[in-house]
């Protein structure tokens, strides 16, 4: 009887047929879609959706440094603010601005984007990246970074490469790509990876919970493949956007 209880406690995240709770294969990503130019006021903006996770990123700059004391003489100042809408999660929580989670994600996004922006080319300027989460269903970090990349590219800011991000996890002995909220809160490891796909560099790597060396390798491999797929999609969206701009110019 004890045995049956323990079996029941452990939720099956993968069905005997090898499908996940939302019907995906372990190595399948959620539907992604992106749109450029959603915020007309901004210099560059993009909305990025990964399944039910939806974020908007807006870039203002390069512009004059607002706080003179923060000016850097040989490179641009990159700033980032991450904010979650009160209605973005299932339960309504009114969180104060600048709580620890928000500050940490802002920092992570800033560092990741700073690694690919050619800051030396724009000394004494400031670039602001604002990300707003409209819907949170796991993988907000990745979605924010992907949206920020698109927004930066749309703003015409020189970058070394298009940094892309994707998460992967490990549940029921199987590596899973792009965890949703239910899988993320299952207690297994959640590895968020950000890479520069053409330069082949890792710019962001975060993992929680324990994982064996071998398992980590396969999870990391899966996340890299996810990043590559996102990179391909982002490149297509940007090309399409540029084509549209070209059409409008009438060339």
């Amino acid at each position, binding site marked *: 009887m004890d045995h049956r209880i323990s079996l029941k406690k452990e939720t099956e995240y993968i069905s005997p047929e090898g499908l996940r709770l939302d019907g995906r294969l372990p190595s399948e990503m959620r539907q992604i879609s992106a749109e450029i130019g*959603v*915020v007309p*006021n901004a210099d560059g*903006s993009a909305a990025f959706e990964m399944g039910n996770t939806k974020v908007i990123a807006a870039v203002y700059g390069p512009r004059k440094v607002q706080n003179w004391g923060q000016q850097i003489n040989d490179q641009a100042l990159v700033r980032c*603010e991450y*904010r979650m809408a009160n*209605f973005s*999660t299932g339960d*309504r929580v009114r969180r104060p601005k600048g709580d620890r989670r928000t500050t940490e994600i802002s920092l992570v996004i800033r560092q990741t984007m700073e690694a690919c922006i050619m800051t030396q080319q724009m000394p004494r300027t400031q670039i602001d990246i*604002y990300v707003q989460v409209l819907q949170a269903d796991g993988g907000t970090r990745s979605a924010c970074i992907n949206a920020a990349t698109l927004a930066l590219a749309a703003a015409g800011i020189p970058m070394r490469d298009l940094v892309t991000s994707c998460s992967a996890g490990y549940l029921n002995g199987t590596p899973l790509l792009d965890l949703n909220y239910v899988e993320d809160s299952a207690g297994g490891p959640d590895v968020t990876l950000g890479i520069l796909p053409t330069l082949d560099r890792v710019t962001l790597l975060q993992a929680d919970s324990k994982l064996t060396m071998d398992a980590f390798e396969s999870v990391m491999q899966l996340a890299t493949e996810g990043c590559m797929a996102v990179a391909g999609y982002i490149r297509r969206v940007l090309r399409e956007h540029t084509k549209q701009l070209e059409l409008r110019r009438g060339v």
Partner: protein
Amino acid sequence: MVGLSAGEKHFIKGGIDQDLRSDGRKRLTYRPISIETGVIPQANGSARLRMGDTDVIATVKAEIGKPSHLHPNRGKVAIFVDCSAIASPVFEGRGGEELSTELSVALQRCLLGGKSGAGAGIDLLSLNVMEGKICWDLYIEGLVINADGNLLDALGAAIKAALSNTGIPKVNVAAEFSAEEQPEVDISDEDFLRFDTSSVPVIITLTKVGKHYIVDATSEEESHMSSAISVSINSRGQICGLTKRGGAGVDPSVVLDMISVAKHVSEHFIMKLDSEISAAEADEAGS
């Protein structure tokens, strides 16, 4: 907020004097409106409204709560507005707080009626589940995605659209319970109650520039504003709330004139809004 040269300012002002604004509109014409409903699946109701370049999202979440002692047969409604930093860098950090609060309070005044809840656009009695024990708490949240003037009117219209998109689940209360205990409730997943939003007022803001006043000012025009009056009016032409904004004083006779103009404009605006909302609902049902 908007950096304009003396020449540009003169141009905008001259246009308003001649009843031909910089974007080709007349003084009392609104920008085109587009509405999308059901944009946030986690909420009970949501709508995204674009008015020219102004872009806002409104959501409604319903939670089971306890009515206050003073009004045991009424539900509770709260309105919060958040100005996202993506709309403008000045909203970064705590920068948007002042504007957010101003908008939230103005919306509460215009839509929720007095302290007792009398005269509210939303029928608070319909949120009652069991007198003195259970009621629905509605949390209405507005989020500004892009700010190009006239945020209050846009948010008011978006909230109206979100409310008509809202489905409140039917609640069954357990038959037996003791007097002190909170009764158990069973929230239905299938049956929903729709709101009657025909009495929800719209907000019309008249911005005074020079001698004239205009509706639906863009942020460029708002930078000229000496004062503005926001009037909330329902479909029966009754005034549900008033807010005067801006520093400069207005002549009392002008105030009355502005209110009557707002009433006149509201008739067209309500009609336009209602048709946009039903079109959006049909769109959502079709997809």
